[in-house]
């Protein structure tokens, strides 16, 4: 009985994801970035990147109960790895103006020589995976000493790591690799992604980032619902009991931390792909806090919540509240009030209200399929302890 019920909701989820991807693909063709609705594409692109970042953070902070604040650092690693390995040869000297580029190898370019367009796509995929792997390896190195300590130390250590990594990547001695404090550009970016079939040019600029995020989030969902995901939750709920029931804490915490960082790396790479630039200075700890806020808004311990939280967050900050900065909002013209910076003020107030009055976030611990199930009364969490 359990099996058939699970299978049914798995199918529902699978079909809705397919429909969503088809819709995004359609929008990609119908809307041009310069249109009035072009903002929608940008929200979808950035929103899906942040959704992946938030879900991967939730895997660690929400599901395993390990509080880490290094997300921006792992995203930076991903963004740079991706950018460095996809800058075509001919652009390289222009990008590395002040340095002699050390890595002269664009994976998509090399593969396209023998395999054409498919090689380019494959190369981009490999660069993405490499971005995840670099972040994962660094996470492993940090995790070795830090995960043995109490979890408060993890937050401090990862926060420190993120700051150090940002400084290191701007260090001029590493310029031949990282381009110092200058930005990386002209690598494989989303705005250039196209598919040509039978003379038709189909835009993939929004579809590809959304697809990357969707596939990654699906993998995280599968992990969370597997026997490992349940072990993570056991560690979060009661570490002592988990260990007594045979769950190796060091090993499972490491798995959660490395997996979370792997997907943070992919999110960083996709962000670079969407923004067309990679610059260390953009990956400040403020970015980590923003992602943390999306997780909290959506509900800690709900993947659906993280996705909704990030999409709303990006839509509000990039689109709906734009008018607050440019003189006209909801038809009211007040250039003296609605000027640069006002949007951030309003935005912060909204977030404070949400965090104060919706403690459990939008979804609590519920997931999408739960919304279609019959309501079952569950005891209030606060009452126990």
């Amino acid at each position, binding site marked *: 009985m359990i099996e058939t019920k699970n299978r049914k909701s798995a199918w529902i989820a699978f079909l809705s994801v397919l429909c969503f991807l088809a819709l995004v693909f359609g929008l990609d063709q119908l809307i041009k970035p310069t249109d009035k609705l072009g903002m929608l594409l940008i929200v979808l692109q950035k929103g899906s990147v942040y959704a992946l970042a938030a879900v991967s953070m939730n895997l660690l902070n929400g599901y395993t109960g390990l509080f880490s604040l290094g997300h921006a650092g792992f995203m930076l690693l991903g963004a740079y790895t991706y950018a460095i390995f996809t800058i075509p040869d001919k652009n390289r000297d222009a990008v590395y103006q002040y340095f002699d580029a050390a890595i002269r190898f664009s994976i998509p370019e090399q593969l396209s020589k023998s395999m054409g367009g498919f090689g380019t796509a494959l190369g981009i995929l490999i660069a993405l995976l490499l971005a995840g792997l670099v972040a994962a390896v660094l996470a492993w190195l940090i995790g070795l000493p830090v995960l043995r300590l109490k979890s408060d130390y993890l937050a401090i250590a990862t926060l420190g790591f993120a700051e150090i990594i940002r400084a290191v990547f701007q260090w001029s001695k590493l310029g031949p690799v990282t381009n110092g404090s200058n930005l990386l550009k002209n690598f494989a970016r989303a705005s250039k992604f196209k598919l040509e079939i039978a003379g038709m040019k189909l835009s993939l600029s929004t579809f590809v980032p959304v697809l990357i995020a969707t596939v990654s989030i699906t993998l995280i969902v599968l992990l969370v619902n*597997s026997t490992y995901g*349940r*072990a993570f939750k*056991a560690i979060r709920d009661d570490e002592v009991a988990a260990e007594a*029931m*045979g*769950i190796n804490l060091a090993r499972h915490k490491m798995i959660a931390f490395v997996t979370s960082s792997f997907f943070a790396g992919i999110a960083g790479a996709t962000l670079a792909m969407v923004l067309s630039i990679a610059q260390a200075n953009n990956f400040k700890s403020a970015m980590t806090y923003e992602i943390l806020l999306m997780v909290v808004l959506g509900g800690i311990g709900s993947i659906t919540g993280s996705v909704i939280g990030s999409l709303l967050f990006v839509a509000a900050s990039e689109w709906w509240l734009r008018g607050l900065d440019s003189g006209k909002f909801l038809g009211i013209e007040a250039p003296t009030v609605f000027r640069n910076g006002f949007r951030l003020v309003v935005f912060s107030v909204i977030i404070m209200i949400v965090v104060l009055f919706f403690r459990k976030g939008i979804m609590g611990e519920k997931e999408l399929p739960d919304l279609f199930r019959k309501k079952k009364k569950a005891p209030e969490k606060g009452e*126990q302890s």
Partner: protein
Amino acid sequence: MSERKTMLQVENVTMQFGGVVAVNDLSMEVREGEIVAIIGPNGAGKTTAFNVITGVYAPTNGRVNFDGNCVVENYPHGKMKKNYLGEHAGLYSHVKEPTPDELTGLGMARTFQNIRLWKSMTVFDNVLVAKHLKRSSNLFSATFRSNRAEEARQRKETLELLEIVGLADVKDELATSLPYGKQRRLEIARALATQPKLLLLDEPAAGMNPQETQELTQFIGQIRKDFGVTILLIEHHMDLVMDISDRIYVLDFGRLIAQGTPAEVQKNEKVIDAYLGVVDDAEN
């Protein structure tokens, strides 16, 4: 009895916290298939003894053998060398400090005095997670669901276990929404899910009324039969202890003050002075 093999052997275990010697030179033995009880007044060091046996604390001195192998050993070294207040300081010379999960893997499982169920999970998942230890799937086979057969088998075993312990009808409830007695029973079921040879129960009847205690007594006897486990338990309910224990160890201020069959222990003057008299007072 005596020809049965030794399941657990505790040798000269001393556990010192700062200047407090919580367990002082404890030696005891549990043979296969036995039900053995540890009793003693509050703060006697019973739970601490459990924590040493199950790997939560490394002892300050002493050794624990389980199922024929030395699994835990330590001696006063480093800072403790100067500060050690116990005996037999020179008897042991090796350090063996496994983590609790390693010992669970070898076949020990325990319950907790202050119930420690996973509170966000259902009754079913609480038991299922304890089977994680027995899985052969790795991260990838689990994520990509190529471990379906194993997952299905573990789910079936979980359901069967819940049926045996009488919790199948509440399997989809949140573990912490159960009444107290059932939570204790669930903790035992969860421990059994790891397929232990030795089951350690820390005050399984705490907070239960006489009726529930009676049921629990039968339940513990039944588990020994059905699962073929050896049981070491800590308990303050004397009816339960005297009823089901083959042998009893009595601790007071960290020291073993008596041991023997229930009949022997009940007659022991020291035990009556230190503990049984007090219990009778307390229960009246």
